[in-house]
């Protein structure tokens, strides 16, 4: 039986959807079967980030309402063996699905897949409650900004109240040169404050913009630092011990040399 992991943040725009897409793809690259669910009903986006927007026939609401069978709602990603998407409905709103329906859906999906990743909408209202309803574990995404860390703290409290314990932290869009200058909070600052386990650090990477433009997850690109970070995160989720990226070395000459020869860290 697989496990259901919700990707959440509280604040919008910190990279939940990109994170869900990339971890999903990276898990599939590790030969796991994965379904990613877009729980952001009304603001569907996981489909475009994954480049699957032209293949949608049915969606999450159709599935829970029984308009179609579960398998008909799932879109197979041809580039990643084992990866499926259950897209959000675009014309409904967050009340179209109830927590109970989500719990049942997650139960059914984890019988079929190793990992069920739920891309949670921003906010702490109904959409959030639905998205976490069926989750066994949670990934909290934040960026090194006061607003994002504050919201992450609030989300951690709400997750614990919902008995989803030990959420894992991803710090996204870290900029090493700013951290060095003391103009951006570092990893330790944030893990101290939030007091949860660190799952990964993702450097700010221009390639993410390009990969989103193309609808191709960055994990496919060996040159993308963020892609590498997401591949590492996927391995940690599976239980492998992968050291955290030494971003300073990666930036420097040795890192470039290592990349040139395809040595991955």
């Amino acid at each position, binding site marked *: 039986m697989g496990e259901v992991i919700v990707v959440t943040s509280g604040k919008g725009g910190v990279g939940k959807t990109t994170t869900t897409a990339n971890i999903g793809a990276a898990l599939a690259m590790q030969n796991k079967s994965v379904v990613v669910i877009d729980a952001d009903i009304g603001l569907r986006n996981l489909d475009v980030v994954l480049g699957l927007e032209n293949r949608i026939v049915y969606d999450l609401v159709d599935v829970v309402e029984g308009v179609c069978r579960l398998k008909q709602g799932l879109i197979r990603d041809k580039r990643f063996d084992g990866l499926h998407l259950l897209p959000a409905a675009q014309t409904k709103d967050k009340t179209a699905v109830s927590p109970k329906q989500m719990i049942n859906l997650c139960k059914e999906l984890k019988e079929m897949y190793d990992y069920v990743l739920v891309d949670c909408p921003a906010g702490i209202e109904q959409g959030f409650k639905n998205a976490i309803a069926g989750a066994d574990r949670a990934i909290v995404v934040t960026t090194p*900004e*006061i607003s994002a*860390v*504050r919201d992450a*703290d609030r989300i951690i409290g709400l997750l614990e109240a919902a008995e989803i314990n030990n959420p894992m932290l991803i710090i996204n869009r870290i900029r090493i040169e700013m*951290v060095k200058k*003391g103009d951006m*909070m*570092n990893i330790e600052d944030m893990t101290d*404050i939030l007091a949860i386990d660190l799952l990964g650090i993702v450097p700010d990477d221009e390639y993410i913009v390009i990969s989103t433009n193309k609808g191709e997850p960055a994990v496919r690109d060996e040159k993308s630092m963020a892609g590498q970070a997401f591949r590492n995160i996927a391995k940690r989720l599976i239980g492998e011990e992968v050291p955290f990226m030494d971003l300073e070395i990666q930036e420097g000459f040795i890192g470039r040399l290592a990349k040139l020869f395809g040595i991955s860290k």
Partner: protein
Amino acid sequence: MLDVFKFFGKDEGSSKDLAKERLKLVLVHDRTNCSPNFLEMVKGDLLNVISDYMEIEEDGLDIRITKTKRSDDSVMPALIANIPIKKMKDR
């Protein structure tokens, strides 16, 4: 404007330290889930009790939730009350 920032920048250390301090303070409030209304209630009750013993300068009264360090350097919330006394009451 730029000079002002520079000036403060020097005094306050790096901007990330400032961010961290501000963040810690808002989280103390967030985590205690303390509304202004709640603080007013605490304030009112405190005044009632204390005024049996002393006369208070009500304008100078300052009650707030802040933080204090535990012995292991972790932060915990603290209720700080600064209550100026006009004079003690005879008992």
